[in-house]
């Protein structure tokens, strides 16, 4: 395993829960690897499967999606369920495209779960490091 490998990770975080959780992680000064670049979306249901494929195509080694807890936390009522269904589909699509489905991770992170965000980010980076760079 190449310990020097710095994976590129795109994190799509919903504005109301996961991104607010990331803000809390900041306020609490919880450290996680800087290799994860956050991108705010209004809702996890906005994330088009194409975005994920595009990120992998452009050089991402992993993609994290952060949304609101099921069943009732979603600011837009049912967006998290839509994201969940898409995640199931994407995992199959990725495997068919020869990309390990573990490179895409969906997590429910509430605005109060700064600790969870930092933990998920750290674990995910470690997991992608173990998987190594995405071969294209």
């Amino acid at each position, binding site marked *: 395993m190449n310990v020097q490998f710095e994976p590129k990770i795109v994190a799509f975080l919903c504005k109301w829960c996961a991104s607010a959780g990331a*803000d809390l*992680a900041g306020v609490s000064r919880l450290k996680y690897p800087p290799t994860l670049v956050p991108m705010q979306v*209004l809702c996890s249901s906005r994330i088009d499967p*194409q*975005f994920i494929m595009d990120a992998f195509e452009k050089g991402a080694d992993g993609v994290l999606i952060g949304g609101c807890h099921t069943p009732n936390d979603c600011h*837009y009522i049912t967006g998290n369920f*839509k994201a969940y269904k*898409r995640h199931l589909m994407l995992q199959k699509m990725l495997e068919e495209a020869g990309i390990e489905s573990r490179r895409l991770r969906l997590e429910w992170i509430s605005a109060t779960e700064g600790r969870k965000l930092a933990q998920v980010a750290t674990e995910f980076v470690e997991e992608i490091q173990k998987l190594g760079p995405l071969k294209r």
Partner: protein
Amino acid sequence: MNEKVGVFICHCGRNIASTVDVKKIVQEIVKHPNVVHSEDYKYMCSEIGQKMVKDAIKSKKLTSVVVAACSPSLHEQTFRKACESTGLNQFKCEMANIREQCSWVHDNLEKATDKASRIIRSTVDKVRDNAPLNPIMVSVKKKCLVIGAGIAGIQAALDVANAGIPVTLIEKSPTIGGRMAQLSETFPTLDCAQCILTPKMAEAAHHPNIQLLTLSEVVSINGYVGNFHAKIRVKPSYVDQKACNLCGDCVEVCPVFTLNEFDEDLSARRAIYIPFPQAVPSSYTIDDSTCLGLNPLVCAKCIEVCEARAITVDISEKTIEDDFGAIIVATGYEAYPKENIGEYGYGFLEDVVDSLQFERILSSTGPTGGEIIRPSDNKPVKKIAFIQCAGSRDKNYLNYCSKVCCMYTAKHAILFKHRVPQGEAYIFYIDVRTPGKGYEEFYQRAQTEHNVIYIKSKPNKVYINRKGNPVVAAVDLLTNRKIELEADMVVLATGMAPSIGKGLASELKIPLDENGFVQEVHPKLRPVECATEGIFVCGAIHGPKDISESVAQASATASKAISILSKDMISHEPIIAEVTEELCVGCGLCITACPYGAIKIEENKAKITEVLCTGCGACVSTCPSGAMKVKNFADKTFYEMISEATEVIPQ
């Protein structure tokens, strides 16, 4: 248009500058396409910092601004207002969060700088694609709908009506007053519930700004904040309220006996009845589900005897429609059914009553006239046992604490001792929770002044012994001893369960929490607002609460509703979806994706009701032909942003 973007990077003292090389980014960012200006300052949010932004907009003729600083939740409004003051549209200003999501969570200067640079570049890509937008203005229908006329609904309706705004107050039962009307006395002051409630009921009934509709239910709700359209089904009472003089002759002749729900089935009533003497509206009602027959008319005894000729049977239910600017939901609670609790007899043991039944037994207008006698054989009760948390805090029944049971059980025990001074009262409890003004003192009084015995235990069983008395089997957790307490009567402190149909919740498009209570937007900062703008919640449908909390919350919803209804026009966030008609094939997948019902198909093209749309984008990622787009969140923008996040920078 040739975009000119200015980038302003904040040091935030050393909060950002200690882990992000601000100067380096300031130098490099001008190489990024469209960036014509970059600056840094120690505190960008200060007056001086804001002036730097404003001056640069004017001198460099900037068309877009990126402020790289803290989270947008903190200062987005600050910088957007600064931009607006120079004439730049507020949506041409975006913040790059390089503090909470970068400098504060990393140590490595080089890597944090690289990440900050990526965040800033992707924000530049976003802001230059942003279109200048103006808030959508919609007119407001100055009328409020209040659903449920218990104490919360009545209070909310009165507050809104007193502000000069018309209110329609609807209630599904024949009288307003709700659960509070059933109660005997209230803790911790022991005010008689009806004495403090009935003046409010009368005030609501006679208020010039309140239209009161009993026997009414919501059929459907459409529309959006400021302009809800409601269909309400009004069942007939068959008795003309104005003509009825309350003589009661009709009741005497009615041959039908049925259980009286107001007395929690402890007494009987006729098919024509008034729930209680002070009911509002003050009139009789024919219960058409138990009446021998209205169409065709079977018995007609009540009609024959009515001298006021107030009874008419040839009327049917009607549906009325009206428009409202705001809606207040106050549908209240149901007592958790004791029939569900197996260990306490599944509701089959006659002398094991629930809390609302005991309220009726205590009430001077109740089935026993306030005398404490037990249902099975009318024997006066000398020894009574109360079981707290009957259903509550139990994963088999209700997970949550129903909050009011500790207090009302202490009240029940005190009232029992008032009526039966020589009697014995035992309370089985897990914990006693008395947060509230004067509540702890009240609980202490039960023990010290009234000698109520508290036993720390969760009883495992209630059964009837050979003498016909209920026995509570438990283990005293403080002494670790087994107890078999024989009493004359057992009262279960049943919890509060929400009283809202799934149908009503989905008509209102408001989410319910895992226990079925209405979910608020934010538990601390927006506690009475629902996810759908313009809909507010108060009382026990929001979660277990007592009368004083319900009243306070009701006034809060009224003030929220008034803040909408006092305006002629309200603004709506312009970040919403739009349809590219040339691409739309009218497949309708977007309709299934939209949680707000904001999309319809007209002439084979999707059409968006702007004020209903919240811009979540579920339709965009569902649309197979790429016809949907959320303003300022186009797919193209995301692809550019993804490029910035993943780009390999040559060393």
